[in-house]
């Protein structure tokens, strides 16, 4: 570790591990409920489990991005963070707000708006907390010895993430307007500015692990984020097909979102090409696995499976079915969860000084969680396609269809168990690394 303040990241990553475990538990609650085992209904009804599951995801990914930024920025800017103490304050405040929101969900305190369920008073606290984070990162870059493309893209991505949280708070009485602004947040995050964060973290990881020249890697970073915005911004249109918005979005959204896989494809080719080009054998194979795996599965999950139902003619039938859950699971896993796990895998041996990165247990965690997630995606996909066919094409009753597809949720739970085994192994490794140490 070059700079002592980088080890702030450890606590952000530790928080990630905790939130991720909770997210998995709530996922199981929903999987079982879909199979008819809803014994927890009176304490944790489905809508509570659902809001908790998705908000924990968003929270641990953001916590992971923040940890990544606290780790990367000192090294890129070549100076210590401006304040370590405020960084801890920022983490604790974020966790307090997050946990309060999650508890609130269990007492019917929320905004029933998909992915943005956090109650309004807490929204303001989130904004304040994120502003503090942006300040800490921004000031460190500003006072740093150098501005790198990687740090600027990362900063811009984080800043835009904070700013784009605001449209979600525009008050409206219309369901259509509500959805319209909600997608400014959700879509422009995950298919826009989060990809900047992803590109920047990937390029940091590739620079460090492959030894390829920074100029080459950062040039490609520009191309990739260029593609991201070319397709992603107008690609928002794929959420505006059927919610009471003008018909031209079918054309605009269809054409531009069909281009979205290109950015992810470029990201995959770039990561693989750089890793090959580097030619030096990495001293952390696990981290390189997660890095390359992230670039490949983000293309499969976000790029390919997203494309599979983004065209308006297809989306007409798949909109609002389990097909969306199929795409959502692998997209978030491939693009963002694996990214955070990659930076954790990379930084842990450096922060703790313990060289435990290439144990068989680490490889087990990587392969088991990934195979588990692929199998989960297949289970969701089969359930989703069956639902589309029976409900949307044959016109069968909703509950009748749900009974027909219960068996696929059994498959889902088996796959999720495998996935969980991998996650447990990952967390076990995380714990084995121990606390960060100042000794190199």
């Amino acid at each position, binding site marked *: 570790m070059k700079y002592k303040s980088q080890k702030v990241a450890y606590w952000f990553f530790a928080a990630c591990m905790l939130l991720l475990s909770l997210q998995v538990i709530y996922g199981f609650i*929903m999987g079982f*409920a879909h199979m008819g085992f*809803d014994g927890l209904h009176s304490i944790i009804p*489905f*809508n*509570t489990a*659902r*809001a908790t599951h998705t908000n924990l995801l968003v929270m641990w990914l953001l916590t992971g991005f923040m940890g990544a930024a606290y780790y990367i920025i000192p090294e890129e800017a070549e100076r210590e963070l401006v304040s370590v103490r405020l960084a801890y304050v920022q983490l604790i405040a974020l966790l307090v707000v997050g946990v309060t929101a999650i508890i609130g*969900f269990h007492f*019917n305190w929320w*905004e*029933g*708006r*998909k992915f943005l*369920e956090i109650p309004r008073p807490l929204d303001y606290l989130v904004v304040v907390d994120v502003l503090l984070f942006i300040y800490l990162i921004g000031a460190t870059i500003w006072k740093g010895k150098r501005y790198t*493309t990687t740090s600027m893209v990362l900063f811009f991505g984080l800043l835009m993430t904070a700013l784009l949280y605001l449209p979600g708070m525009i008050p409206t009485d*219309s*369901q*259509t*307007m*509500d959805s*319209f602004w909600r997608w400014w947040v959700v879509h422009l995050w995950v298919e826009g500015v989060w990809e900047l964060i992803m590109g920047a973290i990937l390029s940091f990881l590739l620079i460090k692990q492959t030894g390829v020249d920074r100029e080459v890697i*950062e*040039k*490609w970073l*520009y*191309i990739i984020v*260029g593609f991201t*915005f*070319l397709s992603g*911004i*107008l690609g*928002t249109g794929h959420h*505006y*097909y*059927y*919610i*009471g*918005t003008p*018909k*031209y*979005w079918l054309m*605009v959204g269809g054409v531009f979102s069909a281009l979205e896989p290109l950015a992810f494809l470029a990201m995959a080719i770039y990561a693989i090409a750089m890793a090959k080009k580097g030619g030096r054998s990495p001293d952390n194979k696990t981290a390189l696995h997660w890095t390359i795996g992230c670039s490949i599965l983000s293309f499969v999950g976000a790029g390919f499976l997203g494309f599979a139902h983004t065209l308006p003619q297809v989306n*007409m*039938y798949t*909109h*609002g079915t389990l097909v*969306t*859950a199929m795409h959502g699971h692998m997209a978030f896993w491939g693009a963002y969860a694996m990214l955070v796990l990659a930076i954790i895998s990379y930084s842990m041996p450096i922060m703790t000084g313990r060289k435990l990165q290439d144990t068989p247990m680490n490889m087990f965690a990587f392969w088991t969680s990934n195979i588990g997630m692929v199998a989960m995606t297949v289970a969701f996909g089969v359930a989703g396609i069956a*639902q589309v066919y029976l*409900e*949307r*094409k*044959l*016109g069968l*009753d*909703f*509950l*009748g269809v749900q*009974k027909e597809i219960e068996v696929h949720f059994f498959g889902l739970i088996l796959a999720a168990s495998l996935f969980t085994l991998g996650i447990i192994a990952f967390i076990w490794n995380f714990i084995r690394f121990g606390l960060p140490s100042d000794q190199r």
Partner: protein
Amino acid sequence: MLSKSQAKAFFLVGTALCAGSFLLLTVDTLKRIPVQTNAKNLTAQAIRGKHLFETNNCMGCHTILGEGAYYAPELTKVYERRGVAFISQMLRDPESMYPGQRKMVKYDFTDSEIDSLVVFFKWIGEMDLNGFPPKPDLMVSSGASGILEAKNRPIVFNQMCIACHSLQGQGGEVGPALDGVGSRRDPAFIRQWLLNPLAMKADSKMPKLPLTEGDIVELTAFLSQLKESQK
């Protein structure tokens, strides 16, 4: 090959162009939405319904406009599909409409809150959604006699009975199929049953439905002529 500064220019110019077009389209869309969604019908009552829909996170199980979770039915066309009586009863006590089935939270809504939600669903159902939700285009058409065509059935049958019972393969699977029920039960039995199922069979899963006298007369007549031979 492209230099780093060219790559940067590609990023900046591309982003600016796309963001600019997106903002222009947004301005236009905001102008058109009120017309397309009949904003004039968005009364104070409908707005209260939306607020209730939101504060209870109905989207956490249901989809509306195709958005939400996939645990409970799509609600975009629920006003047309189920009608006021069914929706109101469901909101009053979900368990009474689908006993022993997938559960919905009982929210203890007041009658006026229920009315607001119904008005909200009506407003949602009347929007122009560019063709969503699609009509099931492979639906098995009911073959034989015209009397059984979906459009000739009493509206209350299509809104309420079909939620649990099927006829000619279409409908719910909670209760028994109603094909040929007129051969198995006489009109007097059907009438008494509709008035209060629990009085006829104490452990029946079927609740006492919010039916008017007119509904019961119409349904009795309709069900009585569903003879076995027509299967």
